[in-house]
């Protein structure tokens, strides 16, 4: 049986094709101006990679902030439900999922079946989301990739006073003027975001194992800061960015069977 999950994110659309419980193909396309068109394009790419036709897909489930604007879908599921399903498909022992995207951060507590027990979301403030790291990398004039790596070179804790991303940008500029090494600033920024996210996730309770998904999981500086803040190991699944789309595809196959 072939099903598909499509994750309509704020920055990128991700699609996963699931064939008999295995990932057959995946694709990622920038959300851009016309998210509906980008979604069709993304699904077509994933289907091509899987060597199937879009018409062969039995059921398509969408998720993500723009899930209602996905074209030709059979059903949809919340971001939280999809992330939990997706991680459960990959790592059965995970009980806490931390999902950090460009504009949202989530903490999800789940059962061994992948069922959601509780969750907390931040979608109001950039301080606990990937956009914060992006803005600070811009202020430091380094690429996001470099920014994450730089952070790992520092072992010094530099406090950041500002919570707001807009104010933090001026603070980063002041730190640069004060000749604070770039790697220390990078670490300070990652520490600031992770402490924000940890305090949100603590509201639902943190149980082992902990997994990090979403676009920010590709940032090694953040993964390091998060595991230090939690004093726990944080696992990052392969293709962490596709976990939501995968979860949606799993849900799609469950919905076909029932």
């Amino acid at each position, binding site marked *: 049986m072939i099903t598909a999950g499509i994750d309509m994110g*704020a920055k990128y659309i991700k699609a996963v094709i699931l064939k008999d419980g295995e990932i057959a193909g995946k694709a990622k396309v920038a959300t851009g101006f016309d998210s509906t068109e980008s979604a069709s394009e993304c699904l077509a790419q994933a289907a091509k990679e899987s060597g199937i036709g879009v018409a062969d897909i039995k059921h398509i489930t969408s998720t993500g902030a723009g899930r209602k604007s996905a074209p030709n879908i059979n059903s949809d599921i919340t971001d939280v439900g999809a992330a939990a399903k997706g991680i459960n498909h990959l790592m059965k022992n995970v009980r806490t999922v931390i999902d950090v995207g460009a504009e949202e951060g989530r903490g999800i507590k789940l059962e061994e079946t992948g069922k959601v027990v509780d969750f907390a979301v931040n979608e*109001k403030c*950039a301080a606990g989301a990937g956009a914060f790291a992006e803005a600070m990398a811009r202020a430091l004039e380094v690429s996001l990739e470099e920014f994450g790596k730089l952070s790992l070179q520092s072992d010094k804790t530099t406090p950041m006073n500002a*919570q*707001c*991303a*807009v*104010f933090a940008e*001026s603070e980063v*500029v002041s730190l640069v003027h004060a000749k604070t090494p770039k790697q220390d600033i990078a670490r300070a920024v990652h520490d600031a975001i992770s402490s924000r996210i940890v305090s949100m996730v603590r509201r639902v309770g943190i149980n082992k194992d902990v997994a990090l998904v979403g676009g920010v999981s590709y940032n090694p500086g953040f993964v390091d800061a998060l595991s230090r803040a939690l004093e726990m190991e944080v696992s990052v699944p392969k293709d962490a960015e596709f976990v939501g789309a995968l979860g949606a595809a799993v849900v799609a196959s469950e919905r076909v069977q029932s």
Partner: protein
Amino acid sequence: MTEQVKEYWRWKEYNWRDKNMDPKGAETISAGVDVGSVSSQAVILVDGKLFAYSNMRTGSDSPDSARKAITWAMENTGLTLDDIHYTVGTGYGRVNVPFADRAITEIACHARGGNFMYGSSVRTILDMGGQDCKAILCDEKGKVTNFLMNDKCAAGTGRGMEVFADLLSVSIEDVGEMSLDVDEEPPPVSSTCVVFAKSEASSLLREGWSKKRVLAAYCSAMAHRVVSLLERIGVQKEFAITGGIAKNAGVVTRLEKELDLTALKSQYDTQIAGALGAALFAKALVEKQRKKVAQ
């Protein structure tokens, strides 16, 4: 940044002095210096009357910004630092005013300055500064009775407005008027966070909204945010607005409408309220000192 790029957020720095006044022979010359996170002001009072002031951007070095502000206020007045009997520093950088005799919180100074600028009937002062927003309740003497502030989030602050001016390539001074030039009031920008509001604004522009309409939506969101702060403390009449955003008619008009209240107008520059209050404190403090010596 290259010089060809226009920085729309950059508001003009300036100084002013009363050319009809002569500080020579004055009994008390007092000064207040407000080193804010975005802007710094210095005010010089001659026997309790406004004589000169400056308003400029705060640099990365607070003591240096304080020195620059007072030097600029003294420009062409014939005064030097030695002629000033007492100086009070205020604002977030108030402990970094090297030549100040004392530091006083900006809350107290804003209430004191607001009392001078708007008269003793003012009970609520809303200070919309560069990186914070304060609602201050005060009595007829300009003494603080209660206050609330937001200094954690750029929504509702001057810095947030600067970000928008830059995004839309509209000079910060023109934002207010432009935002009022719409046929119909659009729904306010829904994102709280300035970072998210920026992406929201970009998609509104892509949908074909005019700059004016986007500015209207943002000014209205900012007014709404500040009203919720004011409602928490409970606005009492009379009501006045100080700080840089007080000069933005787009925010002020919408705020007045939502509160169903007209803000008091003043002949003085709304951005000098803190420094003015500091200078008034300085005058009172030096006079108290003199009395003690005389006894």
